[in-house]
């Protein structure tokens, strides 16, 4: 039993930190740019992606002995796409305002390399429970980067935290201006680059 839990702990640590999908595997960058303008969008996107990766990895893993090799990728995409579409429909029905905020980005989870990447790299060769944990772990790793980037972009680009203005007017009146670049994609690129650098120097010689 303790073997299992150390195993899960290993999988979790790998996904969240050591082999972080964005910082180490360099996956899922596109949406990391697009949804990180505001923290609230980033948080919901992270949640959606984490759950989709976890469950799709679990489902694909449970079918791994039956999926024919030549239609492997299509089969994985079918599972992932169906799951994302159903998630989108559920959001539109029960969490309408959030779904409006996310608009097209929920659908874009299908194209997020992390989901397909974990299916290919892990789910096909491991059992469903391990795959589920791995999916959640990678989702959490992605969330970590996303929320960090969004925090910085929202703070520097709009002077806000979760939609609330946090920079006192005193500082604005003294001449400080919001860094417009942070609201644009290049700003996101810079932040992600810096975070990858930071992450790799912190865990550098370990792997």
């Amino acid at each position: 039993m303790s073997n299992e839990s150390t195993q899960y702990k290993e999988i979790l640590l790998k996904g969240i930190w050591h082999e972080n999908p964005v910082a180490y595997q360099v996956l899922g960058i596109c949406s990391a740019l697009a949804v990180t303008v505001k923290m609230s969008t980033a948080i919901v996107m992270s949640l959606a992606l984490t759950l989709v990766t976890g469950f799709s990895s679990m489902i694909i893993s449970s079918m791994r002995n039956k999926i024919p090799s030549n239609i492997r990728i299509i089969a994985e995409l079918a599972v992932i796409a169906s799951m994302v579409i159903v998630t989108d429909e559920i959001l539109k029905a029960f969490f309408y305002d959030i779904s409006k905020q996310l608009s097209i980005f929920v659908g874009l989870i299908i194209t997020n390399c992390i989901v397909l990447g974990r299916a290919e790299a892990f789910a096909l060769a491991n059992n469903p429970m391990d795959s589920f944990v791995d999916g959640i772990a990678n989702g959490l790793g992605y969330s970590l980067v996303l929320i960090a980037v969004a925090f910085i972009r929202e703070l520097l680009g709009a002077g806000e935290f979760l939609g609330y203005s946090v920079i006192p007017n005193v500082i604005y009146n003294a001449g400080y201006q919001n860094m417009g670049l942070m609201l644009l994609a290049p700003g996101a690129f810079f932040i992600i680059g810096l975070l990858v650098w930071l992450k790799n120097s912190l865990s550098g010689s370990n792997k």
Partner: protein
Amino acid sequence: MSDNNFDKNSKKNVIQFSLMLSVICSLLITGAASGLKHLQQENIKLDKKANILKAANLIDGNNKPPKDEILRIYQTHIKEGLVNQEGQPVEIENDDVLHLYYYHTNNHIDGYILPIHTKGLWGKIQGYLAFENDGQTVSGFSVFSHAETPGLGGEIENAWFRKNFKGKKILNSQNKFVSVGIAKGKVKNLPKNLQDHYVDGISGATLTGQYLSEGIKSTLTKYEAVSIAFRQKRLKAMDK
């Protein structure tokens, strides 16, 4: 299943597997879509009402009130109307008829709200533009849906952009119809005689601003007869 001879790559399995997967996925998706459709449409209808109220400044844009309150305020203050091309109220709906909304307090019409439906940069922009009952002063603007770039064109849905519309005039000092548009850059850099007819542009989103300006202009031109009627004070009170 634990058949020793099970070959996942056999032609038989490929076909069987694909069929099963397709059927299950289709059922799931169609099930979710049709099962939830009613709820989704209710949400859309409620959101449209909330946006109409937002344009008329009857609710605060930043804190959306609960469903019951939105419905109550809508019921009390908004009346849907149909007019023909000449601005005359009509009863029967057909293709030539224009939709609009009157907002009223106790049978006194305070203003009217026009639906804006225009092409944007990446998709359609839908919103509502509200006017005071003088037929020329904008009292509010709200965006119901759009597909513009978040952080750039997407700023049209934010309060800072929308509140600039309040007080703008669609008639110039010579009483000529000029509509209201989105400037490239800040309004304060425009000549004084134009400042009442433009709002600040969104930096990095010139095209969205252009499309929205064109869309507003063509919509207002269509509804000009209604505005004229208000200007001539013909629609101050509702006939019951």
